[in-house]
């Protein structure tokens, strides 16, 4: 599989979850594991551009696909991606644990709806749990991300 543009031909135990593979074999610990049963969305990554739960996939199922994790959005030292920047400006994160999952879901949302309605924003982030923010700041961040993406 390719992860963030790099080929990773490493052999993987067939029962290894994609989330564990990313975190513990590839050291990409920005992808978090909050429930391991596909509800919280902390482990959301992009698989060929679409948001998926990496805890509900086996790593071997990603063979032949392109996986994008939060680490793949911007290079070290480079400015934040507009979605990340919007989360910062709108105080859309507190403990930061759910944040990479939200960022990946918002990327997927904006890919489908570059100018989302309030309802589309609500639906677009409704697959991720946040226990800190109460979501209001995350909604604001999506609106801000759209603005930043246009600039």
């Amino acid at each position, binding site marked *: 599989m390719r992860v963030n543009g790099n080929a990773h031909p490493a052999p993987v135990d067939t029962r290894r979850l994609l989330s564990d593979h990313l975190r513990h074999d590839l050291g990409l*610990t920005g992808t978090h594991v909050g429930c391991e*049963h596909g509800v919280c969305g902390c482990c959301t990554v992009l698989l060929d551009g679409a948001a998926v739960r990496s805890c509900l996939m086996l790593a071997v199922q990603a063979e032949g696909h392109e996986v994008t994790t939060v680490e793949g959005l911007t290079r070290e030292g480079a400015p934040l991606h507009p979605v990340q920047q919007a989360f910062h400006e709108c*105080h859309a994160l507190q403990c930061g644990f759910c944040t990479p999952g939200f960022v990946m879901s918002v990327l997927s949302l904006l890919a489908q709806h570059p100018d989302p309605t309030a309802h589309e924003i609500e639906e677009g982030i409704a697959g991720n749990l946040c226990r800190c923010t109460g979501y209001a700041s995350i909604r604001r961040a999506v609106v801000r991300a759209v603005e930043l993406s246009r600039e």
Partner: protein
Amino acid sequence: MTTRWFGAPVQRVEDDRLLRGHGRYTDDIDDGALECCFVRSPYAHARITSIDVEAARGMQGVVAVYTAADLPFGGVDLPLLIPHPNLTHGRTQRCLASDVVRYAGEAVAFIVADSRYVAEDAAELVQVEYEPLPVVITPEDAVRAEHLVHDDVPGNVAAEMLQEVGGVDAALAAAPHRKNLRFRYERGAANALEARAVWALWSDAEHRLTVYDSTQSPTSIRGGLAVLFGLPESSVDVIAPDVGGGFGSKIMLFYPDELLVPYAAMQLGRPVKWTEDRQEHFTAVNQERGQVHEVEVGFDDQGHVLALSDDFIHDGGAYTPYGIILPIITAAQVPGPYRIPNYRVRFRDLYTNAIPTSPYRGAGRPHACFVMERTLDVIAAELGLDRVEVRRRNLIQRDEFPYEVGVAWQDGNTVIYDSGNYPELLDRALTMLGPRPAGDHVGMGLAIYVEGTGVGPYEGAHVQVLVSGKVIAATGIPSQGQAHATVWAQVVADELGVDIKDVEVTSGDTRRFSWGVGTFASRSAVTAGNAMHVAASMVAAKAKQIAAEHLEANPDDLELVGGQVRVKGSPDRGMPLAAVAVLSNPVRYAFGGGTEAATQFAARARPGPPLQDGEQPGLEATGYYSPPGSTWASGCHAAYVRVDPRTFRLEILKYVVVHDCGRVINPLVLQGQIEGGVAQGIGGAFYERLAYDADGQLRNASFMEFLMPYATEIPPIEIDHIETPSPLNPLGVKGAGEAGVIPVGAVLASAIDEALGVPITEMPLSPLKLYELTR
């Protein structure tokens, strides 16, 4: 001091690495660590008749299997953190149970293996024989005491406490109206999205234990580990790295893993890590909120409360590791912002066969607020008065502070409200709420609350100006998302006249600051915030003292501005703070410049030894702040809701909050705390229910069935603030972490009560519960 940073909506300095995926949570730390898994009791109450771990031990990839019999501390009861004279029958569990298990999820064996996958396979090979015992699951079961959770605790009563202010019986007897009421609040769960995790390494060469722990109190963990393992505290480092939410669940200590992981690391000479999974979290991490209140209230024709008697039972769970703090807080907080001239409260803290209880955001207060506010609604209904007017007539007025309630507080003092303006909270909330929306099945709810915050005993901070001019600051208590690194940088930057970008805060790392208590009870801004202020003030004073000699000025004539120490009114007479840092250490510096000024050959070398009596090298200071009493924050929430009469779907049409936590350090961070608190309150009031069955099994131990709200369930929340500074601390701040959650249950109950016309006396609600109530 200037107020440039304090009070400004400064964006967080923590965000960048968290957004890039470069946060460092405990499970992110590997370093070749062995991984672990627990074998936990499937029974809520059972006698263990045998444990056979041989098959697990023999499995390939398994490194060690521990039962109580394998541990030198296997027979040691875990600490009872806060003993109290009324806690006559305190009991704590052992690290691993060997005799009787008293809740489903109690740890029995601990497996260390090459990977967690292998450890979980091995757990299935552990054979534990149990003889089931009768289960006590609800507080009502516990008080009936047909069965006992602990053989040697009669009546299942861990503690009983009775307090009375005034003369309740006489006041009740004389009251024109009396009413008996019963209120029931069920358990809830904090469910931080990062479950718990511990990583430990023992270095034989350095004789040193290093522990990473997703805890709210690394300093206390360090102290306990040092005692248990017979090490000086200076040989134990405990770090709470990034912690993915806590909300109280991670202030409990010691969880068994917090001993077993370090112990295994010491035994095995390799790093060891345990990471909890979500299902495990549901059955292994403390919960809170189960209480049943029997209230008798006496009131006059105008709705004034004349006397209130509250007799409640508290579901303590299987053990009392956290003492009786929760029911003490509830007992103290029932009167809330209201004048209750005669108040009696008795509680019994009862054992049940469920997970032990310890604070969850709100900690005893949401239930207290629910009891008082629901009682006031009943008084209004009985008298045909407006609910708002009844509250207005009973509120403590602005000129009555300090206001002594007269009951015991969690810090050992009695409850004294330091400052507040409760009528203003109510007026503003009603103005914000505006007119009632049109339509049927619409209800209005409101609640006013107080919150004792900033509880002692103390916190400390270390602040140092480096020779680069950068400032580093550290305190012992960790952040679980509260933006400590930002808000304390604001406090320090103001005091030292520097940009917050030049202040780097470390919190929750005993290598940097080893004293302190923990992040809980809405106490960090008050205790550690003021400690930062104290330490930074000491550094500022020292900087002025050193610079004064070189500038030939009086220290009192100096100010710290823009990274300079300069003469007030003569901005050109000054020197960089960086240079002062060089001067503070009278030796040669190879790097960093300024060496010529700090040697004995400097032009203005002063007479006498380089370090004179009472002087210490370095532009640094350690300061402590110990509050004389709690600071009392307050607020008013109000809402309009609509309930669908067929599906009982709840629609929150409008939700407003007016909040007072004294002086606000960072309004952006405060807004986030309140919005998040309200969301947790809404979840706890209407969606989240821990469904224990009669056998003590938690039937919904997953996010599939324990319904935490998504964005779709949380409405926009409108927030306003008033500021009545606390007179008790230099910054005038009060705590804010728990406030948002406290009144939500009371608000929604009041609104749903009116929308459907059915009395709401219990929490949590759900569509099914409302359907049952309206039948």
